[in-house]
């Protein structure tokens, strides 16, 4: 692990705007040194506010504590927090070339030119942009720019790296490849990192743990598997992947008794039988081929619509009658209802 990396403790951090709206309600979260945590949620959920409060670019409400190791930095100005930040739209300095951008954080700290150049060379090599050192940033593609921005943020060996939707501005396929590269680089650097995104795939691919946020509140913090398999709230369940909410009526018909109004099951756990055998029968209304599987929408006779995944090889047609079974061990309840 990187010796510069710090643990971070967020205590009671909240942000209320002057007009009284709470962008972020009192929030606590602990991040270990070297850990990569994603703040995941839809627009307006408060994830960016939390990140910017950690960065010192937003002033949280009185009483908020942000601990870097043991030091409360809430009153430390941003430029003295020793952080690195990567922005959605790159925010590279347009008047400087690639190397000067990467060197900037070292220059303002008064690092000698020779050391600066060595560090810049090292980082440009890491992000595979050595050949671009003297290019103007305007000549680079989006993916290249974001790699420069990452190198620039990492160059001064910050205590924590903050990433604000770093891949959102990129094309789907490019996003995927840069996502893997970013995950790899962050692990190489061994740096504590907080990564804001609205994309659950991206969060799962990059982060060690995910904090799912909604309406200014962290609903659950856990690793991807726990979030997916044991979601605390319907929001978390719905935000990571898809769910079927089985209503009372459906539950009664499959003979399940439950104190909750509904129980949940993920589409890949619903068993579909093309021979029309199962606990319930229904009619296929739509099939979406997804390459490695098919997502079927099935209308249970006289009742609700169920999403179910079948293998890509299964022959299933729209309007076909199929049987559905709901393995009991895959049914789960939630404390909170949306």
């Amino acid at each position: 692990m990187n010796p510069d990396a710090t643990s971070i403790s967020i205590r009671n951090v909240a942000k209320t705007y002057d007009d009284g709206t709470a962008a972020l309600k009192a929030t606590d979260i602990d991040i270990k040194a070297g850990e990569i945590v994603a703040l995941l949620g839809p627009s307006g959920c408060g994830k960016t506010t939390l990140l910017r409060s950690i960065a010192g670019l937003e002033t949280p409400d009185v009483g908020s504590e942000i601990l870097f190791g043991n030091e409360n930095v809430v009153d430390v100005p941003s430029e003295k927090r020793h952080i690195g930040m990567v922005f959605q739209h790159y925010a590279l300095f347009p008047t400087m070339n690639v190397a000067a951008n990467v060197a900037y954080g070292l220059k303002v700290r008064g690092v000698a030119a020779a050391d600066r150049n060595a560090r810049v060379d090292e980082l440009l090599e890491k992000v595979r942009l050595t050949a671009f050192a003297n290019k103007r940033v305007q000549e680079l593609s989006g993916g290249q720019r974001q790699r420069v921005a990452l190198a620039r943020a990492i160059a001064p060996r910050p205590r924590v790296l903050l990433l604000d939707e770093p891949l959102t501005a990129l094309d789907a396929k490019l996003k995927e490849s840069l996502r893997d590269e970013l995950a790899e680089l962050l692990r190489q650097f061994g740096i504590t990192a907080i990564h804001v995104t609205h994309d659950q795939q991206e969060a799962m691919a990059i982060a060690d743990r995910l904090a799912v946020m909604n309406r200014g509140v962290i609903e659950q913090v856990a690793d991807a598997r726990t979030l997916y398999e044991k979601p605390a709230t319907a929001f978390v369940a719905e935000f990571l992947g898809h769910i079927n909410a089985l209503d009372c009526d459906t539950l009664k018909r499959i003979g399940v008794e439950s104190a909750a109004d509904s129980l949940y099951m993920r589409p890949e756990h619903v068993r579909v039988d093309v021979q029309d055998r199962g606990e319930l029968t229904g009619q296929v209304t739509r099939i979406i081929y997804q390459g490695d599987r098919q997502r079927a929408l099935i209308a249970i006779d006289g009742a609700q619509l169920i999403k179910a995944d079948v293998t890509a090889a299964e022959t299933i047609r729209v309007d076909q009658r199929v049987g559905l079974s709901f393995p009991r061990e895959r049914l789960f309840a939630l404390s909170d209802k949306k």
Partner: protein
Amino acid sequence: MLQPRRLQYVHIALLTPVATLFVAFWLIPAFNLILLPLSRLGVAEGLARYAQVVGNARYLEALFNTFALSLGVTLCTIVLSACVGFYLSRFCSARHRGWLLAVLTLPLSFPGVIIGFYIILLGGRQGVIADLSELSGGERITFAYGFMGLFLGYIYFSLPRAIASFAAASDALDKALEEAAITLGASRWQVLFDVIIPGLRETAIASAAIVFATAMGAFGTAFTLSAKLEVLPITIYNEFTNYANFATAAILSLLLGAITWLVLLVARRMTDAKGALL
């Protein structure tokens, strides 16, 4: 986007005023001015007059005065208005700022000649400053009729638009660049010099060019204040009106116009501004 191919009518409808304007407002005046000395005085004497005017010490001094004054006004205006514009953009709530801008652009509402009078009321022979300086036991200080009076008057009417331009340019700065610099450890002054000032560079050049051009051609203020310092627009006026010296006036006009136009041209080349400010 509307395709030229399919907008022939619009194209033609628009072309007519463009062509008319170009001929009426540019081609005819330019040739007229250039040829006027030749047509009034005959070719030989006309050309001789060109040489005479360009070599005349009094005219050159007026030109130098005008140029130095304009340059000083431009520098001072740009520095002041950059500070004020940036301040309005960053530290004023939208409400306050609307009022402040409305108030600061008040000088736009007054003709140059009124501004000239105001300077006289302030720094003239019977002005407030003269009275005050006498009361406090000194001489009667007057500054209205020389360099200082013109300088203040010109600044007064140059500031408002420059301030508005800098406020708009400060709004348009990418805040993420400043945040990037700050998170990289830059102090406020480093942010100012490395990010904000480079970001306002184009606005500064464009505003400077406009201020310079306006100062070079200022007449109303100059007319009331240039008793002790001759500036070129007044020289031209005198040649034309008092001495009916049309040929000389035309040559001086060309000289003044050419210098100003050149400055505007260079400024336009130095910016990517697509005509927004220049």
